[in-house]
């Protein structure tokens, strides 16, 4: 039995979790448990895989997974959001071991990850950078600057996982995958609750192009 629900309850106080926290839960678990080559021992190493949580609000699932993987003590969770706690309602890379970027304002993670993929390439490092964005986060135009360049420069170290809980106003069905595909990305859509499907999609690294995994979850979950 996974420890994650109990760890999340330390922050939320009950078994019902807020929607922003649970929509990302399975994706983040699969990344840390099955896909990313990163651990508390390797977090300072230049050859680690990077995970950028761009959609920084509702980070309970993220904190629970990081605590479960041993990046910081479980005892931190109960006090989250308090003045003395390193765990904020948006994560800060300078405060939380294992957190790669400080996020909160939407539309920054993917552009940062493009720079990171370029930095890995320039230094001959074969690691990957995986960015989690929300479907509504893609409203931000900064993402579109980034996804255009990533494909143009064939940044195959870069993976975007879009957690799609249909929370964007003015959404058009199928638009997310279509737009990435139009720019030259490898695209795949999966059930965002199916761990085996997520693992398969997130482990795949196409050569010569960035890839996007659109993970569908329940509406506004």
């Amino acid at each position, binding site marked *: 039995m996974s420890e994650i629900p109990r760890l999340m309850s330390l922050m939320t106080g009950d078994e019902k979790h807020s929607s922003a926290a649970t929509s990302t839960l399975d994706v983040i678990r699969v990344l840390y448990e099955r896909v990313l080559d990163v651990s508390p021992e390797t977090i300072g190493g*230049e050859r680690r895989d*990077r995970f950028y949580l761009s959609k920084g609000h509702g980070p309970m699932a993220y904190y629970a997974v990081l605590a479960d993987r041993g990046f910081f003590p479980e005892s931190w969770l109960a006090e989250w959001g308090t003045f003395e706690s390193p765990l904020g309602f948006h994560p*800060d*890379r*300078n405060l939380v071991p294992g957190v*790669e*970027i*400080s996020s909160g*304002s939407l*539309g*920054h993670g993917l*552009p*940062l*990850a*493009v*720079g*990171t*993929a*370029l*930095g*890995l*390439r*320039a*230094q001959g*490092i074969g690691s990957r950078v995986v960015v989690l964005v929300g479907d509504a986060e893609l409203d931000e*135009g*900064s993402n579109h*600057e*980034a996804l*255009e*360049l990533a494909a143009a*420069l064939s940044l195959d170290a870069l993976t975007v996982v879009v957690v799609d809980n249909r929370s964007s106003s003015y959404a058009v069905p199928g638009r997310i995958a279509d737009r990435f595909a139009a720019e030259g990305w490898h695209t795949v859509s999966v059930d965002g609750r199916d761990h085996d499907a997520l693992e398969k999609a997130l482990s795949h690294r196409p050569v010569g192009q960035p890839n996007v995994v659109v993970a569908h979850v329940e509406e506004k979950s």
Partner: protein
Amino acid sequence: MNPRTQFARTAGDVVETDPSVALVYAEISGQFFGEVEARHPDRVINVGIREQLLVNVGAGLALTGMRPIVHTFGSFLVERAFEQVKLGFGHQDVGGVLVGSGGSFDSASAGRTHQVPGDVALMDTLPGVHIHAPSTVAEVDTILRRSVAGSGLHYLRVVGQTNSTSHTDPGLHVVRRGAGATVIALGPVLDATLAATEGLDVTVLYAHSVRPFDNRGLRAVLATPDVVLVEPWLAGTSAHVVGDALRDLPHRLLALGVGRQELRRYGTPADHIAAHGLDAAGIQRSLDGFLSVAA
């Protein structure tokens, strides 16, 4: 060679000699980077007309341990993409060298969209930032190399207006010593300030590196507690650092700089410098009023 072409030459040279340096730009100045980009395509990156991306690509490179030089016109670098500067560099706490060209006056004929008198004030909101306003090609070369070799976040303001002499050290330089007021010229306004203070018994100080401000240098030479700031960006931008340096002294401050009012005029840089009272005659007029009250 002018300050902007010197920037391009030095940046290319630094990329050539230091494999940890990357140069990121957004079309602007691409005409200067062709050769070095062809030799180092992984480290000289044109992001297209995408300034939000420009800044965060620089920050993302810094997250991998590289030292980015990030360049476009100052208006698009600092104002359009300020949240990227604040969060990508400031909040992530990674370093880099941002180089904005154009400043307040270079694009006089292009209009307000290409003028950035507010850049120093805006960058000054970031904790620990280093802000430089080199005023000769030699200063551009020295300061860019020093900033890239250093750590933290640096902003270089590269403009066409120049002074006739170069200074290498970052602190306040004593250019002229007098018994009266202290006039502080920041960046490429030193020549005009010297002409305006000709024959006056005042001290003239100069700095190209304006943040952190050299409080100690000001205190060391202060004669009478009358201070005049001359800065070719928003008037009053450095008033708070002078106030901080003199916090225990009753003092008077005249802060000259670019006015907040939008001129809605075209013309030349010289036209705009004069319109904001930052040519020698304008500085002299302001000084006359201020110093006559002191006497």
